[in-house]
């Protein structure tokens, strides 16, 4: 089958892959680039588990035609931690018991990161809005919202 070459920046690394035409970005990231952090929950754009940042803004990688990311920058949870140091969002989710099965967590973290990058001091409603496209079946959402607010506060040097 004919394959198309594709290059992009994945978590600071120049990445080149060959893709089957019509592939979605999620498959390309996972099986082509070997970044397994985005997850497939529906391939319909309805669960948010595959959320990645493209040029800094959240996208659903399952609904992104791979060819459209040529030359663009993609960030995933795989690049969220700075080396061994967890991102404050990761730290807050961990300490706040804000994950159970963990399957939605990577996508949720990307949605939250996109929020905090633009809105360092979000209100509770803004946090809720930011994760509104990301489903969680385990937690009832409240611990997740709390964790994001905690992370925001810590990043701003406040106590939540």
């Amino acid at each position, binding site marked *: 089958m004919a394959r198309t070459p594709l290059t992009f920046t994945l978590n600071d690394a120049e990445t080149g892959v060959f893709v089957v035409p019509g592939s979605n970005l999620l498959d390309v990231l996972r099986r082509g680039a070997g970044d397994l952090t985005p997850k497939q929950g*529906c391939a*319909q754009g*309805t*669960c948010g588990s595959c959320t990645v940042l493209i040029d800094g803004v959240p996208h659903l990688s399952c609904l992104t035609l791979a060819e459209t990311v040529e030359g663009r920058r993609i960030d995933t949870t795989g690049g969220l931690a700075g080396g061994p140091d967890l991102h404050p969002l990761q730290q807050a989710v961990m300490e706040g*018991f804000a994950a*159970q*099965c*963990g*399957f939605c967590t990577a996508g949720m973290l990307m949605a939250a990161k996109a929020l905090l990058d633009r809105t360092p001091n979000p209100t509770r*409603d803004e946090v*809720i*809005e930011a*994760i*509104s496209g990301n*489903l969680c*079946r*385990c*937690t*009832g*959402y*409240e*611990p*997740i*919202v709390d964790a994001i607010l905690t992370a925001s506060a810590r990043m701003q040097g406040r106590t939540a």
Partner: protein
Amino acid sequence: MAIHKGRGFACINYPIGMNLGGDPAQALVHSTPDGKFMVALSAIDLGQGMKSVTRQIASETLGVPVEDVYVDTADSDTGPHDMGSFASRGTHRVGNAVIRASAEARKQMLEAAAEELEVNASDLDTDGKGNIHVKGAPSRSITVADTAMAAQFKQGRTLAGRGIFLIPPSDADAETGEMTPVTCFAHAALVIDLEVDDETGDVEVKEINSAYEVGRALNPKLVEQQLIGGAWMGVSHALYETTEPQYPKRDHGPQDFNTYLMPGPGQIVPHNIAVLERPAEDAPFGGKGPGEMCANPVLPAVANAIYNAVGIRCDRLPITPEKILRGLRANGGARPQQVR
């Protein structure tokens, strides 16, 4: 238009595990040469915290720090048999198997330490911080690490244990239904406050106050995770979820998360929980599984609160706005009940 407030109550008990038995769980525990413990299970962690709670159970039973215990699930080549994670059997069945395996490993550990300290194993205790000491004489001690090294390289002794927990298969009697549910029962009671819009039939749950009796909260944060998430699921079952909106007709079955409705993060309900702990005799450290029962009381409490608000009995789930509106039409409007 009017918004009617309603308050409803429900209480339940929940039988832990597959009640007719025949559902064994096994565990294997062994130490590394330097006294860390590996627990091999074939139980499944699907988010409920199986790895975490069995790790704590192993730590408590062994008498070693929790950081020195690691739980591995589930590889059929290395993990012993287990029926699986369902019916709230995990904490109870697997937890008991882990206690047994850990108890045996502890026994080996204390015997190895006894040989090093030249005392009787029965005179030894652990401090839970990685040391083994003579009861009443904390200074006469040896670390778990040194004990393991001695066992491995000097004494030729394994610090290992196996455990199985089985309630043998039984049956229900054909004529009377007599049976032994065997397991313990968890309990819950819950009050729902909600509002009903009598023009659209929309329901908004405003507050939940609950009491859950879980035997023992083996890890209070894991219990809290289950109870908050479970009550959310209960609200979702009561008001939103169905794979067949026209049941039993199969028409218009949702095929995605946009049409299979579940409440979103904008619908978080404040939930004030009281956790009660009445340990059960046959449960690990008395802990019953909170995972399944926590959603159950929410469904009837919501239905009862809706009746309290507008005087409509909603006996068919989910309680959609349409069902309420049809009830309001049939009743000639809302009939608010006694304020509670």
